[in-house]
Structure formats: C-alpha cells, structure tokens
C-alpha cells in the first residue's frame, strides 16, 4: 500500500550547511501531523521540501526521496505547478495579495485559467464558508484584503488554499502572528479540515501540537529524533532528548 507522503532518507544542504540529516517520515491519510523542535532544527525546511518551496532559495541541494501517492516529487519530470496545487501552504505571516478579498480567494483559480465567473463566485463562497469567514466577510468581498485584521488575513490565506482543493496543506507556524483567541479559531478550523485534508503543521508551541495533532515529530539539529502518535510523544517519549524538550528542560 502506498502512503500519502513517504519521505525517505532526505538530506538538504544550504551551501555547506547540512540542514536536514537523513530524515524519514511516513504520513497516512487524513491526519494532522505536527513538527516540533527548537528554532533552527529544520522543521520549516522539512515542511518546505514537501511542496518544493526550497527550490526558490539559492544554494539549496537535496538528496533522497519524497513520495506523494507513490510518486517521487523530486523526479526531474515532476510538474512543479501541479505539485503545488496538490500541496498547498500557509505561511508564518499572513500574506494575502494586494487585491480584493474575493480576488485573493479566486487567485488559484485564475492561475489555473478558470474563466467561468459564476463558478468562480461559487467556489469563493464555498471556500470562505469552509474557512469560517463567509459571515464576517460576505459584505466586504470587494474590499482590499490588506485592510483586514491579521487573524482574518490568515484565515483568508487558508480559504485561498481551499479554493484549489489541495490534498495536503502545509502550515508553517500559522498562528505565530496571532493572539490566543485567533489561534483557537485556526485550531478549530484545522480539526474541521482534517476530515477532507492532510495537514502538516510546524509549530514551536507544544501545547498546540498536543491539542491538534494525531502524529507528532520531534526534530533537533536537522534530525528526526522521534516520530510517533502525539499521545505517545507527550506521555511516553522513547528518546531522552524528546523527553527533555517536552518537559521544558530545554528549547
């Protein structure tokens, strides 16, 4: 049986710096996976290998394999644009485009050359509903997205992803610019989205990992120290280093 995502012996170098060391990770269907670890441990870098966002950075070299539904996304024949439609990403700081609310959500559709206006409007509404924004924003669809408060901007960025119906959603510390109440809303939304999507979230907030994730990976200095059920990681860590981190002795 093929797994949704199967990372095999992945190494990544920024020029000389060895940022990911022989990482292995298997992700099944419809789970929330959290990646935790101290700053600079490579968790964001690992996340960005899954939709090949690291390709945008100069001096990055990658060895190993990342399979998505059994296909290695680092194969030379891989269609990057298709890949990124299947594996969407939410960033640390909300990054809506300098366009209206509805044009932000429709962005992925326009990229895919969608022309049917009625259909686009439908998808925009559906995506905003799924992101819990429809009631708040239905009268502001033509307002500039950058005028919205940050917590709405971040949910708009999620709505923007949902419009292209990705299979996997990568989230790179999506709540680090948000207050606790906004964070809670995003977490509720993640649990809701889990029914239809695979979510991988990078977080430096261990409580968040414990609250929302089914599986959890602890990374340190570019290595995947432990990858297991979240309940196991937090109650019964196998590795001494994981235990030190989750009990707050370090990190």
């Amino acid at each position, binding site marked *: 049986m093929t797994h949704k995502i199967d990372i095999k012996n992945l190494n990544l170098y920024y020029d000389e710096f060895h940022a990911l060391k022989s990482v292995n990770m298997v992700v099944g269907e419809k789970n929330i996976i959290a990646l935790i670890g101290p700053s600079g441990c490579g968790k964001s870098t690992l996340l960005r290998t899954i939709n090949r966002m690291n390709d*945008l950075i100069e001096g990055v070299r990658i060895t190993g394999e990342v399979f998505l539904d059994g296909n290695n996304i680092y194969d030379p024949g891989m269609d990057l*644009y*298709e890949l*990124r439609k299947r594996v969407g990403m939410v960033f640390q700081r909300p*990054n809506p*485009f300098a366009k209206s609310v509805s044009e932000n959500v429709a962005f992925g559709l326009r*990229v895919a050359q969608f022309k049917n206006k009625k259909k686009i409007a439908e998808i925009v509404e559906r995506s905003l509903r799924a992101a819990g924004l429809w009631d708040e924003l239905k009268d502001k669809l033509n307002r*500039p997205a950058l005028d919205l408060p940050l917590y709405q901007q971040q949910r708009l960025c999620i709505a923007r*992803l949902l419009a292209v119906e990705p299979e996997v959603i990568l989230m790179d510390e999506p709540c680090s610019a948000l207050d606790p109440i906004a964070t809670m809303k995003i977490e509720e939304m993640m649990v809701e989205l889990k029914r239809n999507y695979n979510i991988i979230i990078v977080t430096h907030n261990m409580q968040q990992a414990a609250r929302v994730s089914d599986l959890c990976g602890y990374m340190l200095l570019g290595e995947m120290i432990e990858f297991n059920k979240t309940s196991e990681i937090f109650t019964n860590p196998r590795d001494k280093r994981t235990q030190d981190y989750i009990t707050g002795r370090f990190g």
Partner: protein
Amino acid sequence: MMKLFSEKSIKKALTVIAFSAIAALLLIVVFIILEGLPFIFKVGISDFLFSSEWEPQMGRFGIFPMIIGSLVVTLGSMIVGIPLALSGAIFLSEFVPRWAMRIIKPTIELLAGIPSVVYGFIGVMVLAPLIRDYLGGPGLSILAASIILGIMILPTILSISIDSLKAVPQSYREGAFALGATHWQTIHMAVLPAAKSGIIAGIILGLGRAIGETMAVIMVTGNAVILPKSPLYSVRTLTANIALEMGYATGMHRQSLFATGVILLIIIMVLNYTATIAIRRRVGKK
C-alpha cells in the same frame, strides 16, 4: 542650561533655513503668476490657450500649437519610455541575481546624470538624419524628440519601479508559487498589483521630467509653431518657446512668455499632485 540653549537655537536655525527655502520657491511662483496672469486676462483665456497664431510682433499670442507640442512630445516619450522601463524593471528585479543588480542599477541611475545637451546632441547628429533618410520629413521631429526623451526618462521610471518591485515582500511571491502559479503568473498577478502605485508614481515623475525638459527638446524638435499632422512633423514645446524667445522679448511679448510659464507650472503642479497621491496611497496600504 547651556545644552538647552544650543538645542533651542539649533531648532530655530533649522526652522529659518527651512522656511527660507520654501519662501524662495513661493517667491518664484508668485513672481511668475504676477507677471503672467494679468497678460492672460488681457488677451483672454480662450484666445491665449486655443488660438493657433503666435506672432508676438503683430500682437497675436496663441500658444495652442505649443500646448499640443508639449503634450504630443510627452505622450510620445511615454510610449517609448514606459514599455522599456517596465520590462527592464521587471527583468532586473525578478530575473537577475542580486549581485548583478548591485552593478546594473547604479549604472542605470548614472544615465540620469548625463546632461540633456548631450542627449540632444546625439539626437541631432544621429537620430534626426536617420529619420530624415529613412522615414522622410525634416528629421527634427516629434518622433526624434519622443525617442530622445523616452531614453532620458528611462532611468527615473526604471529605478523607482525597481525599488517598488523590490519592496514587495518575498512572502507575496511565495504565496503565489504555493498556489501553483508560474513565475510569470506570480509577477503579473501578485507582484505587479502590489507594486502598482509605486510604479505609477515613477511614471508620473518621468512625465514631469519629460514635459519640463528644454535643452534636448529645443535641439531635436525643430521648433516650428505648427499643429503637427504626423510624428514626422516639427513642433515647438512650451518650454522651448520660453527659452527660444526670452533673449529678445520685451513688453507684451515678454509677459506672454511668463504666461506660458504659468500654463507650464499648472500642468506640472497637477502632475506632481497626482504623483503624491499615488505615493501616499501606497504608504497607506502598509
């Protein structure tokens, strides 16, 4: 105590200097208006602006051909300059590695430092003969002026456009790429809209420079006071009109040149005002 005193006196000195700069500007504006405005009312606004007869010795002061001349030459320079500047800015900010940018951008900005008489000289010696030989007409023409001016305003538009493209946060590009956009889609759907107001401000500043340029324009337009029928015709611009005739103008004639200046001033003020609004809107968004 001493410290406080020097603090206050520096503040006062700076205030005086700042105000004297503004005062000098104001005086110039007031002077031009006082010299020019009564003349405009004496001749009549519509006769001055919309009559095509410019014969100062005969008492005919119609600057319509010069207004048209200024506008078509400026428009032409925009048609030449904007596509070059925009494609250059997009190429340099999005496709060229950072180290190359560090060399190329100052070089472009150096272009702005070349005196306009040099541009004009090239226009007269190289461009005008080429146009005359291959396209006909006198050579010294709207077309020649458009090309020369287009190149002259290139550095202004290019460097402001590069700055505003570079000011677009990297996260916009990543956000677009993460939705499966190609490089070009990312540029025209995510980056350009975010940089738009800055680019517009750059274009308007370039426009101001084109409409105010005098030396190069005198050299390459041919300066005939006629309404042009094609880009190969000679024209005279408002600025050229002042520069060419001020040496021997007296009385009404002299006043008419100041009045030309008033019209020029109004056009440029409107342009600058629009530019300021465009820039402010950009800042307000952040």
